[in-house]
Each structure stands twice: as C-alpha cells, then as structure tokens.
C-alpha cells in the first residue's frame, strides 16, 4: 500500500468536509428560502456526523484487516478479543453519531412542521418578506 496516497486521500476527505461545512453554513445563514435553509441544515448535520466517524478511523497496516466494531465469535478466547481490539475501528464516535443522527432527524421533523405552518400563515417562505411583515407589526404594536 502507498502511504502517501492514503494520507493525501484522507486529508482530501477532511478538507472536502470542511468545504461542505462552510457551504452549508452559508446556506443556513444567508439563504432566504426556508426550504433551502432546511436542506442546507440537514447536509450540515450530516457533514458533522461524517467528520465524527472519520475521527474514529485508523490507518490500515499491511497484514491488518479492519473490521466494524462487532465481535463475530460468540465464545471468544482472550486471544480473539485481543485480535478484535487490534483490528476494530473506534466504536464511540459511531455511538455518538447514531445519537446525533436521530437528534438531527427529530429537529428536522419539527422544522418541517414549522415551515408548513409558516407557509399556511404567511403564504410565503421567504424570510426577508416575513421579516418585513414583522417589522411592520412590531412598529404598529409599539406605537
């Protein structure tokens, strides 16, 4: 195996994730359409999650086959467990991501209901227009 290529590709992956992070952050903050914001937010969540799992990866060495963190032997001897520890990837980030994905899904479900309601009430999902209406409303309330 070519260690230079492997390192380059791994760092390329990390950089791509940072780029995705920046693009979606732009999408969430600067886009005026709520649906666009929603799409960007879901991608942002996914990017953070992929990044997390990437942290728990490890370099393959010749003669070492990586495996997912699941033991395939039902009656393991200490040697098998030792081998398993040497070969498995980090399970903790995976557990974090599992939690984070569900949380992201829950938040997105809620945001969907809210976007639908915004559409029912304001007949638009453009935050600039809604902001304009709100400024007028607050002005009326304050006077």
């Amino acid at each position: 195996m070519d260690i230079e290529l492997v390192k380059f590709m791994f760092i390329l992956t990390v950089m791509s994730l940072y780029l995705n992070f920046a693009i979606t952050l732009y999408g969430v903050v600067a886009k005026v359409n709520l649906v666009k914001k929603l799409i960007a937010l879901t991608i942002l969540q996914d990017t953070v999650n992929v990044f997390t799992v990437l942290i728990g990866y490890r370099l393959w060495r010749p003669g070492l086959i990586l495996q997912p963190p699941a033991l395939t032997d039902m009656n393991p001897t200490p040697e098998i467990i030792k081998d398993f520890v040497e070969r498995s990837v980090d399970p903790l980030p995976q557990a974090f991501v599992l939690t984070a994905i569900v949380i992201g899904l829950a938040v997105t479900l809620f945001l969907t209901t809210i976007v639908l309601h915004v559409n029912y009430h304001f007949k638009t999902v453009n935050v600039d227009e809604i902001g304009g209406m709100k400024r007028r409303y607050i002005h009326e309330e304050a006077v």
Partner: protein
Amino acid sequence: MKFLDELAGTSLHASNLIKAIVLRIMGWSLMIDLESWVLTYLTLLMIPYFIAFLLYLVRILKGPTLSDRVLAVDALGYDLAAFMTMLTILVRSPIIIVCSVVLILWIFSLDIYVAKYLEAKELGG
C-alpha cells in the same frame, strides 16, 4: 503438459478420464489460493464499476428534467448496492452487508415520492 502425459499413460476409458480431470482440478485448487484469487479479481472489477458511477453522475448533473435525474439516481443507487455487496467480500467483513439491504429498500422510495409529486395533487392522496 504433464497433465497430458498422465492422460496418455492411462487407458482412455471414460470413467478414468473423468476421474483424472477431477483429480487434476482438485490439484489446481490446492495450488491456487482461493482467497487471493477472489480478492484480486474483485479488486480489478472495482475500477470499471467506479467509472460507471461517474458516468451516472454526469447524467445527474446534466439533467435536464427532474425525471432524468431521479432515474439516474435510481440506477446509481441500485448499482451502488451491488457494489457494496462486492466490497463486503473485499474487506472481509460479511456483517456489513446490511448496508446494501437498506440502500435497496430506500432508493426505490425516491421514485415513488417524485412520481407522486408529479402525478397527484396531494402527497397523501
């Protein structure tokens, strides 16, 4: 060559011939390691598969209509699922096959959603 010599040495009786061939093939199978054979072959096949994915991606980028894109995503998804099953053998962890099961099950849903979007007035109707 040696094989033919052996054959010539024996009388050309049909049962003997079959026996010899079977023995010979078993001998080969002892000589070549099945593991490295499978893995090398699959490693070589990965590359055309990946090229096919890139071509599908070009179609997704070009469009031009919604249906074209969905269709390309669909084909990409099915092929990716097949690709994942091969990769499962390649990385020698059979239990990660479950991934392609879910991929197969869910890629189809995109078709249905878009079809419903195009066809009906209400998504729940």
